[in-house]
């Protein structure tokens, strides 16, 4: 049994002093944090678009293209964005001065699907999916082009990678059929974080589901 102070009896006034100490500590912590970080860098506030743009950069980093997808050794890795896309601005920011696989990253913005041409290695696009996007050149679905979308069913309509939101976080799914068909590869570092999707025609994953 633990003898306790009488309720309402004098509790240690020490608390007041300690509170003062807390305030000082808190203040010091904040100051320390502020000092630890040098000049303010004026970055935009984090948004879904910024997170997705960073993912796109990582897709480029963790995906593999066949040698013949590049004209020569130093050719840039070309990332296209089909407008209108909420990601275009964020991609400009995220991809500036970046290198991947020893190649510079070049961003191309297309105002219309018909404008899209090679060289192109990764295409970010709004819309329901490559197969149902009017005017999209066929090579986007046959050549080694990694298509990235953000619409439900994108991967079932010819898309390779699709963003979705889950529980307030950005997630992505990968259609491994498309990856294989378009002679791309994808590192397990990505695949283990992805939800795996398949073409529409294919039956859903075999047994084992709840």
């Amino acid at each position, binding site marked *: 049994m633990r003898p306790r102070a009488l309720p309402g009896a004098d509790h240690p006034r020490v608390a007041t002093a300690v509170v003062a100490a807390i305030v000082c500590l808190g203040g010091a912590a904040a100051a320390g944090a502020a000092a630890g970080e040098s000049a303010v860098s004026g970055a935009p506030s*984090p948004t879904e678009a910024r997170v997705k743009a960073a993912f796109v950069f990582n897709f480029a980093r963790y995906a593999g293209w066949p040698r013949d997808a590049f004209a020569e050794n130093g050719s840039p890795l070309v990332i296209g964005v089909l407008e209108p896309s909420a990601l275009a601005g964020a991609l400009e920011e995220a991809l500036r001065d970046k290198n991947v696989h020893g190649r510079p990253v070049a961003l191309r913005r297309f105002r219309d699907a018909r404008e899209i041409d090679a060289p192109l290695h990764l295409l970010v696009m709004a819309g329901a999916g490559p197969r149902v996007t009017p005017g999209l050149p066929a090579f986007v679905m046959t050549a080694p082009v990694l298509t990235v979308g953000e619409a439900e069913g994108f991967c079932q309509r010819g898309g390779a990678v699709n963003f979705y939101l889950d529980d307030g976080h950005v997630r992505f799914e990968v259609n491994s059929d498309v990856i294989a068909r378009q002679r791309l590869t994808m590192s397990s570092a990505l695949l283990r974080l992805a939800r795996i999707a398949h073409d529409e025609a294919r039956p859903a994953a075999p047994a084992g589901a709840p």
Partner: protein
Amino acid sequence: MNHHTPRPCRAGVPRHQRRRFGGVIGLVACLAAPAALAAPARPARPSDLPADLTTLSLEELMDVEVVYAASRYEQTSLTAPADVTIITADQIRDFGYRTLADILNGVRGLYVTYDRNYSYVGVRGFGRPGDYNSRLLVLIDGYRINDNVYDAALVGNEFALDIDLIQRVEVVRGPGSSLYGTSAVFGVVNIITKKGQDLPGLRAAASVASWSTLEAQVDYGHTWKGGRSLLVSGSAWDSDGQDLFYPEFDDPTTNDGVAEDADYERGGRVRAVAEAGDWTFNVLHGSREKGIPTGSFGTIFNDPRTRTVDEQTYAAATWSRRVAGDVDIEAHFAYNRYSYRGRYVQDYGTPGSPLPVVNNDKALGEWWTADAQATRRFGSRQRLTGGAEYRLNTRQQQTNYDLAVYLDDDRHSDVLGLYVEDEIGLGSEVTLHLGLRYDHYDTFGGTTNPRLALVWLPAPRTAVKLLSGRAFRAPNAYELYYDDGGLSQKGNPLLDPESIATYEVVFERLVTERVLLIGAAYAYRISDLITQTVDPSDGLIVFRNLDEVQARGLEFEVDGRLARGVRTRFSWSTQWSEDVETGDTLSNSPRHLAKLHFDIPALGGRLTTGLELLYVSERQTVQATTDAEHLLMNLTVTGRLLDGRMELQGSVYNLPDVDYADPGSAEHIQATIDQDGRNYRAVLRYKF
């Protein structure tokens, strides 16, 4: 222990003093969350994010958060139309939190009291003793869990969800009735649970804590190709509790004031959640039994048979889908059950009556809900959400009996809510959020509650939010119908809902990429507060729409990530609240709250130290005495071994062994209820 009924529980009302329960603090023992064993320092808030997000790892990117509860769809917290705090699974683990009450007690502006039976959350200076958290709405994955008899939110060990299964907790301050209907008076606590992919494989945890407290938990998660996933979990715990001394009972006839073996607590929980395509299936059940050592409600002191058992059951199916690219729809169907069984051993002291008498006070609620919601984006400028919620209360039963039956009341009712929310971008810097919800009750009729939020981003990484709204709390079945036939309490079926009008200004700024500053000011006024009183004409306790309360408050918080991954959070809240008519300060309403947290990683994330300091200034008790201020310190150290497969955790709660107490409520003879002294917990978690 000499108590033999291994089941869990809730509070009730013995014959004499039929007030419903009273208040407590967060001491309870439970489990901290063994969050993801991967990346040690994860960015959780905008404040933690670097300017160039490509510098983050994939895991870190996946962990960047957006808020859900503030307006029912996901968005980043800086632009959320509310003052929001997020507690992540990592924080829950690092600070050794054992219950939802522990988690909430660490949040700016919130304070938890414990009366050794239930835990009660005070918000913004409002923590009425005897209020069973009916003014705080708790959601599980976005859906209401408060019961249909008391509208109570269970936050201590009586809460049916294991703390280990919480992915994060979003605390949204301010009125939420424009989206969620009743109970969202002071705020909404949305608990996002872990799914199969969050806890892959088989894991087991065991903990030992002070006062012979043992707990064990097992969970298994699996994700199939195509994204289908399953998580199942089960746990059980048992605690002897303490022998407690209460000077108010210091008499040879009442064991010299010592309650022996009466503080026990035990219970179990099961959970399953499956995701398949557009569907999510949820099952949750929890049961807790708690001995009441305080002699509350006029029960015989030191009789360990006095106890409550609370059981919560929830089964739901949710379907959500994006259709046509810019329309999201979600439908939800759920069954809920809540059972409270109180056993109160009493001495009626009347000649001829047996001694003692075991009084049974029970409530059983069952209800079904159907909820449908659609959100449509109109370009990037506007987002419109509309929804309907229907709740069918098939059982709202209250009984009380011992030698005779005093109360046997069962009700059926339904509630229909219709809501709409529109988010309109006014230029690139200003967003307007308009919300409106209509609820219809078959008791008092309809109520309409609006909300208006203006979020202005005057500069990068800076947000100014102007928020105002009205919320309501419908009179609950207990307040309407608890009537023991003229013995002590009568019902009042004519009760109106109470309402609150709130005005807030919130300023948030990322001072650097690592420091988030939040300043907030608020004012609220509660009208027609449902208050327990005595009818002078017959001397019976009755609930009436009596009081008006008004309050103003200021809050400040700094959340910073220091060098080497150290994260610190400091908050200060101060408030002035009063009963409008009398000018009196409210009971259990501390003028100041301060909280300081340090989360310190070491050894490349293999060792984490969580230090928590919680200050509560003095409070009035219902007996018009003063409960002294206190400062509490909790320390938790967590180590990860075997490549993160094993986690060892040790916690010391109330490290300096401070004597402190929380205000009791009307059912207590004690003005204040003493809280736990220094106590310990050790946890071992293993992933197979």
